[in-house]
């Protein structure tokens, strides 16, 4: 029988419905695990066990009275600490905002509360979702549960590490240059960056307005669909928000891949940014398995990955500079060194550089849209290397550009990263699937088919 801390949200909902598990029982089990193991993982910046117990008791009362609000009722969710939770500081893992108490819930947190979910706590991030794992901040960096000497990825590092450690079944992350999918890749979980505009960013501290996304991080593909449906929806309070047809995003999770056309973007990891041989072999194995399951896999060519990555970085640096310039002028010493170096880059990019990047962005969108005339889903590498040691600053810095996630921040297409193997060192390897605008359902369908066929989701770190 599966231990409580490894249950998926779907399994928990099923047990709540059958009354074989209660929200209080689950909350106590998770709080005990967090108390025992988080001092080694550092997933949490803030945890209020008494509030969690009170919310679980309230959920239990409602469910027992037959007032079940839906599949997330009574289920704990971890929140990346750049997303507002009313009455709690949104620190962005930074000294600069250490006392920044949120006056209202972010739109996504409000939606989770409406669905009956329990806000479990605020989770570690890279400073302002941009620095690396830093040791000169008010809170320690999260560590990888598969090997605590290793980097859990970022910037949604507490979300990824906490899921892999069995601290919660669901978490929210944000993704401007891969920050949901990087920790998903490093920690062997599922991270979905939705279509730009599908999930409101109101109440999430911005990094780069035209690249920012909020999205689900989970241990299973079905849970990613469940969480996406809970947080998606048009919000007039977010200028980038769009009204997409509502879910269910998971309607075709069991349909398999027979008849689907999968475009394999090999040049990303073969020539543009040559991947570690273990990564290359693992991604090839994904393509082979999908073909065996009935997908028509063909090679697709997109613009060069380095060019797409540079577009992302110029847009990101320009927009982030606009947000942080005042603090960089007045309080440069209050940032971690890695964050300061990255944020200062925007001061050396001109208006022409930014506009050029936007013009190239539209070319990139057209190229990806053209590919989707011929295929239903794109398959690419996610990280080009297995997770590195967290105390090796040079290796950590190298991991951020060596990835294929930024193209879909530039274009806004939905993209999901998940585990596709373990390295010789016992650390997760990853793959990425991307889909048409608004077509998270097909991305999730392919990911679910792969998950079933490959069986990696049953593997957990030994803690």
């Amino acid at each position, binding site marked *: 029988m599966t231990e409580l801390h490894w249950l998926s949200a779907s399994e928990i909902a099923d047990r709540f419905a059958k009354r074989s598990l209660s929200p209080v029982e689950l909350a106590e089990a998770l709080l005990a695990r967090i108390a025992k193991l988080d001092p080694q993982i550092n997933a949490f910046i803030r945890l209020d066990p008494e509030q969690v117990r009170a919310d679980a008791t309230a959920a239990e009362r409602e469910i027992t009275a037959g007032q079940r609000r839906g599949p997330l009722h009574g289920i704990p969710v971890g929140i990346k600490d750049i997303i507002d939770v009313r009455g709690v500081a949104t620190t962005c893992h930074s000294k600069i905002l250490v006392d920044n108490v949120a006056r209202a819930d972010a739109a996504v947190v409000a939606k989770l509360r409406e669905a009956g979910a329990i806000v479990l706590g605020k989770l570690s991030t890279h400073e302002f979702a941009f620095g690396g794992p830093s040791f000169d901040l008010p809170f320690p960096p999260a560590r990888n549960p598969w090997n605590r000497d290793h980097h859990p990825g970022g910037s949604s590092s507490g979300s990824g590490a906490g899921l892999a450690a069995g601290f919660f079944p669901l978490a929210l992350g944000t993704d401007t240059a891969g920050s949901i999918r990087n920790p998903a890749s490093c920690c062997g979980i599922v991270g979905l960056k939705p*279509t*730009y*505009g599908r999930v409101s960013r109101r109440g999430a501290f911005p990094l780069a307005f*035209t690249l920012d996304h909020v999205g689900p991080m989970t241990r299973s593909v079905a849970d990613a669909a469940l969480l996406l449906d809970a947080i998606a929806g048009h919000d007039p309070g977010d200028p*980038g928000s*769009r*009204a*997409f*047809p509502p879910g269910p995003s998971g309607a075709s999770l069991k349909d398999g891949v027979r008849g689907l056309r999968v475009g394999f973007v090999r040049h990303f990891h073969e020539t543009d940014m040559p991947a570690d041989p273990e990564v290359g072999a693992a991604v090839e194995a994904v393509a082979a398995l999908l073909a065996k399951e009935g997908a028509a896999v063909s090679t697709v060519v997109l*613009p*060069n990955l*380095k*060019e797409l*990555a*540079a*577009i992302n*970085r*110029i847009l990101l*640096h320009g927009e982030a500079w606009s947000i942080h*310039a005042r603090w*960089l*002028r*007045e309080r*440069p*010493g209050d940032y971690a*060194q890695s964050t*300061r*170096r*990255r*944020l*200062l*880059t*925007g*001061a*050396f*990019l001109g208006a022409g*550089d930014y*506009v*050029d*990047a*936007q*013009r*190239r*962005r*539209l*070319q990139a*969108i057209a190229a990806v849209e053209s590919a989707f005339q011929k295929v239903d889903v794109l398959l690419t590498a996610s990280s080009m290397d297995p997770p590195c040691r967290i105390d090796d600053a040079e290796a950590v810095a190298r991991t951020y550009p060596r990835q294929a996630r930024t193209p879909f921040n530039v274009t*806004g297409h939905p993209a999901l990263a998940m585990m596709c193997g373990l390295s010789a060192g016992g650390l997760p390897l990853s793959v990425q699937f991307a889909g048409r*605008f*608004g077509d998270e359902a097909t991305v999730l369908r392919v990911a679910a088919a792969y998950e079933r066929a490959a069986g990696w989701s049953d593997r957990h770190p030994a803690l």
Partner: protein
Amino acid sequence: MTEQEIEAIARAAGLDKALKEFHDDVSAAAKQAEDLRRALVKPLGPADEPWPPMRIPDPK
């Protein structure tokens, strides 16, 4: 970019304090900006538009 140019741009951006206390970080940031600018090599046509910044089609 020379050190003099880096310092001139940093001062024009109001980064005197950062320049004084974290000179290496300012220089590293300037180098990063140069590298990014050089990475964009594909030519643009004069009529290539920059707007809107995100071109997501209307949902069907």
